């Protein structure tokens, strides 16, 4: 796991497929404070494009990075504003 991001909360959506990774990420971000970083663990290969696209067109989040592991895709999202 990466240590470059100061992770506040981890969301595990492993085993869930579209649209759940994005939908659950949104719900989790709602519970965060500005500046908090959410780590999302997913196995859905579409989540790389989906979470990037979602973060790109959503005002209150910023995508810090995405990592592709052996079985798990890890996404780092910061809540802004």
């Amino acid at each position, binding site marked *: 796991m990466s240590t470059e991001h100061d992770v506040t909360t981890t969301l595990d959506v492993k*085993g*869930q*497929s*579209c*649209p*759940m990774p*994005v*939908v*659950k*990420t*949104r*719900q989790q971000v709602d519970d965060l404070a500005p500046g908090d970083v959410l780590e999302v663990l997913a*196995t*859905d290969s579409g989540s790389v494009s989906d979470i990037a696209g*979602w973060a790109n*067109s*959503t*005002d209150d989040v910023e995508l810090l990075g995405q990592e592709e592991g052996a079985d798990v895709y890890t996404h780092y999202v910061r809540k802004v504003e």
Partner: protein
Amino acid sequence: MSADTSATGESAAEDVDLAALRTRVDELEDQLAEVDVDAGDDQRTMTIIATKGSLDMAYPPLILASTAAAFGWDVVVFHTFWGLDVLHEEKSENLKLSAVGNPSMPMPNALAALPGMDALATRMMRKKIDDNGTASIQELIDVSLESGVDLQACQMTMELMDYDDDDMIDGVTTQVGAATALEHMADADVQLMI
């Protein structure tokens, strides 16, 4: 016609034109200000008309609706005809897949029409949904409602199908018709009929 007379006449006409022009410019500026206010509203909206009640066709509207809600969009899904079954408390849990007339089914229509084939196809689909970690229709309805999607049930078709408000899933908007759907569609950035 002398040159002087002509010049005076044109000058008077220009004065009138100029005054009219100024008024018109003022009007246009006012209108532009209103347009700017509208454009400043970056709230996107989507209206989906959901007309299908089979297990496979129940998915696209709910997947798009819940995802759009995650994007912060204002979403209405207006369910009519067989689409109502998706919001029906009991029927929603027993949506079926039709084996007949579906070219993607790995069996000929003559076989697919045999008794029990729809049930078999539905069981196979449900197993695949489970194995794939695909959300159930119930889960998608729950997250949609949680994220503020307005799931509407067409009043006319509810009466046609003998459904009461109590038959529908909690949180569904009832007592609405085509005009309600159109009102939302008219302002929507995305309108889909599924």
